[in-house]
């Protein structure tokens, strides 16, 4: 590993002065912060899991999604013809739930390469069946009925429909790209990969720390005991079960993050909610919710948690300065119809859902610029002004088209619910009609009264005369 040198320099730099570590390639990569984004001083990245773009937003209006013409061959099942994606129905879960301890689908690199099939994007069924998984499940998709709150977010803010996972592999390489702009050569989430991460090269958080930028990494509902257990790295022994959090939030596998000043910045999601309410969010927050959007966490349960995190920011005093990225780490084994770009001879991972939520983004906009997980740490470095040395995979890290120049921030809104309803109030026509009726009734009554009154006076006058 050539990273040991950087780690050493970083360590020395961190110990001796408030200076950033020297670059790996000698050049700090920066792009111009786009108009609109200059108002952003708090960035939140929420990491969800295991969905492709099409599986969540394939039927979203205006996005590059699927229609009735998108089908996938069933040949590997020994059946003729092709199968079309089918909508989520909770009652189907019973058919798809795997045995305890097993995954419902493969999201590994091998399956992804098979599904990709040199860009033909027709191997999703085959990739799973060949590995002994269910051949129907990859073609399942969700829509505005099954994940209404997440769709509302997309309708209100920015949906990225060409946001690719950085690696065809599973969570670990993709999350590494999200927090470091590189997978450090990791292709899959294994114990050996976690072992090698112990002295991982600089991540975004190292740069933020060195640059004096506040940050926090909020990991699900981990408590102090969990952190201690992770710190001992006992799970790396072959007979121990590796906690999922180590793959989904790999800073937990990096040894220096077990010590201050890093350790004190690893918190759980209740700390995030409290900080959001108190206006105490750091400049950069990464959040791994619990429960995450993993397969067979009921969609509404993980959706409610995600929305509660977004709502917490919307309700808090920092909303006007905040940008939230919500991204899904890898494809999860589900289908997508867009072949990912090939960078340096390797395909990126499949498209994953990604949202940008902020009072400064273009409302209801679908952005179709190629980006991947590595774009986000580069963007954060640009906004916070810290050096960043990973070039990333896709070109754009400015997200310029997602922002809009405006004088004042958009008002915050909260999302979810919709089950309670509101008391019925009459439409404008009813109110106007009622006003006309009252006015007419009283006006007519006054006219009759006046007529009667003056006719009586006239009669009295005549009688006197």
């Amino acid at each position, binding site marked *: 590993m050539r990273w040991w040198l950087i780690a050493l320099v970083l360590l020395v730099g961190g110990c001796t002065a408030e200076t950033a570590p020297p670059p790996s390639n000698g050049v700090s990569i920066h792009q111009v912060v786009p108009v609109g984004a200059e108002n952003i001083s708090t960035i939140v990245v929420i990491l969800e899991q295991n969905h492709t773009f099409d599986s969540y937003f394939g039927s979203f209006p205006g996005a590059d999604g699927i229609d009735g013409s998108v089908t996938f061959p069933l040949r590997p099942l020994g059946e003729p013809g092709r199968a079309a994606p089918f909508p989520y129905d909770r009652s189907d879960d019973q058919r798809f739930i795997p045995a305890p301890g097993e995954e419902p689908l493969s999201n590994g690199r091998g399956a992804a390469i098979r599904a990709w099939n040199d860009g033909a994007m027709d191997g999703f069924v085959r990739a799973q069946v060949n590995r002994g998984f269910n051949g129907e499940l990859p073609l399942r998709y969700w829509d505005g009925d099954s994940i209404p709150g997440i769709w509302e977010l997309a309708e209100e803010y920015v949906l990225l429909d060409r946001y690719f996972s950085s690696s065809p592999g599973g969570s670990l390489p993709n999350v590494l790209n999200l927090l470091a702009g590189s997978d450090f050569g990791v292709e899959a989430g294994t114990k050996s990969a976690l072992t090698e991460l112990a002295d991982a090269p600089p991540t975004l958080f190292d740069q933020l720390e060195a640059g004096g930028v506040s940050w926090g990494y909020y990991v699900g509902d981990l408590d102090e005991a969990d952190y201690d257990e992770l710190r001992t790295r006992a799970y790396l022994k072959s007979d121990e079960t590796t906690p999922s959090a180590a793959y989904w939030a790999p800073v937990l596998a990096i040894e220096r993050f077990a010590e201050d000043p890093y350790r004190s910045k690893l918190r759980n999601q209740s700390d995030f909610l409290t900080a959001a309410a108190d206006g105490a969010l750091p400049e950069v927050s990464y959040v791994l919710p619990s429960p995450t959007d993993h397969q067979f966490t009921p969609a509404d349960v993980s959706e409610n948690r995600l929305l509660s995190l977004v709502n917490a920011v919307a309700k808090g005093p920092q909303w006007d300065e905040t940008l939230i990225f919500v991204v899904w780490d890898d494809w999860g084994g589900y289908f997508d119809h867009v072949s990912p770009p090939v960078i340096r001879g390797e395909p990126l991972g499949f498209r994953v859902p990604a949202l940008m939520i902020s009072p400064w983004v273009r409302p209801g906009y679908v952005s179709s610029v190629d980006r991947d997980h590595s774009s986000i740490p580069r963007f954060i470095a640009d906004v916070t002004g810290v050096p960043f040395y990973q070039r990333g995979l896709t070109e754009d890290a400015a997200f310029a088209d997602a922002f809009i120049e405006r004088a004042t921030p958009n008002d915050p809104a*909260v999302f979810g619910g919709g089950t309670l309803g509101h008391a019925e109030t009459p439409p404008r026509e009813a109110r*106007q009609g*009622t006003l006309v009726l009252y006015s007419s009734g009283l006006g007519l009554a006054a006219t009759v009264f006046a007529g009667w009154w003056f006719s009586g006076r006239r009669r009295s006058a005549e009688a006197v005369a």
Partner: protein
Amino acid sequence: MFRSRWGAVLGLSALALLAAVPRLVSLGRVGFNSDEAVYAGQGAALLGDERMAEFFSIFRAHPLLLQGMIGSLFTVTGVNDVAARMLVALLFGVGTVLVTYYLGREAVGHRGGAVAAVLLAVMPYHVLVSRQVMLDPPLAFFASLSLLLAIRGSKARNERFLVPAVTAAALATLSKETGLLLFPILFGAAVVTGWWRVVRLRTLIVSLSIAVLVGLPFLLSRAIWSAGGSSDYILWQFLRPPNHTQAYLPGIMIQYAGPLFIAAALVGLGRMVRRRSTADWYLLAFLGVYVTFMVAWPTKLFPYLMLVVPALAVAAGSGIVWVGELTGRLIPRVAPPLARATFGIGMIGALVSGPMVLNTGRVIQEGPDPLSDRRFDLEVHEFVGAREAAEWAGEHTPRNSRFLTIGPSLGNVLAFYGSRHFVALSVSPDPARRNPAYVPVANPDLAIRQNDIHYAVWDFLSANRSGFYSRRLQSYAAKYGTAVAFAVYRDVDGEVRAVAGYPPASAEPLIVVFELHGGDPIQPLAFPPLEAQRDEPPSGPAA
């Protein structure tokens, strides 16, 4: 009493001033209570305010005369609570005092009328209710006016008074539907006193035509645009459980008018029963019908007595004049009889009204609470801090956020000042046991998890009313709370203050807003339990 036109002007002006001052002082010190918020919100909605229309249906239980007036006022002043209260206080509060003078004059002469009007002008109860945007002040004003016109017509045997008397009764009904009972009272008394003999068919038809024209818009608008809603309200009105015992309304009178007033009114009523003049017939019929109605009707609310206090004030005026004249006779004959009688009336009148003046001062400064040991009269409580909490919500919470409250009272204030929706724990899922205007929340826990409820608001008034729901609300705050976002409290010096966070331990919390998170519970929020710092309220569901 007034022996010249200028004397009358001066006397009536003094009376109006006496009535106006306590009704106008510090009108905006505390914001609207629940009912005021609803009526003012309906008025604004009726006159085209789309923001209010989202929260306040114009089709609730009552007709819309006052609401329409308030809405029209808002088109000039903007939505303004003080302006709305001024309208009610001046037009109907002071107006009723002046009408009461004439009513008393018809019944017991100038002195009785003056005493009755002064009593009403300084009565804590009347001052309190006529400072608020409630339907009862206009109802009482038009009902008193109708009585006055009918009595004058009957006494003069002049049919011309019938049309304005019936018009006033119709306007009373358009203020609040209980005014409908005025019609049998008027026509019944007209028969007993023989007035009906001079009324021609043409006049009767004109009278009834005007009554129909005034009342029809209420019925027609409901029939066209809210037929289903109307049946819901009828069901609710007839099936709603009693909310107070029979002792409630007499208790209100004792506390907010005073035992001496009650005694004087009883004496006066005794005199009226013995005398049975034309005016007495009307007043006795009026009081008999409405008191019977209030006893029989299961729902008893604080402002209901507004309708009968002018007639009671006339009775009290009659009693005070009689006792005063008797007292005057005991005075040594160093002065002429008229002076001695006036002195006696003044002495007794001062005895009755003195405590009223003192209590009215307290009501103006502190609201109704100091005069009462009861905990159920929420309709006219001063909702200290509610306006401030609602305005905070309007400025600091997302536009579509929803609040969980103990009862709907605070919710209405939130909607009016903060434009925020709410659900209340005390709203029953049973349609026969809830006001149809409110959405029930059958499972608040689930609604919070589903991000349907974003804040919980505890308030001292609702907590006083229902300790049960107060504790329930706090259990949700503890389970899903992330922070105390805002609070209004009374500090040890009695000052009301607001804070972004939990109030100091030494303070009396009045309103506390908890921020809630959706999804599964994460970590309990620790905060000291909130108890209303007054009498221990009865547990169990609120009405």
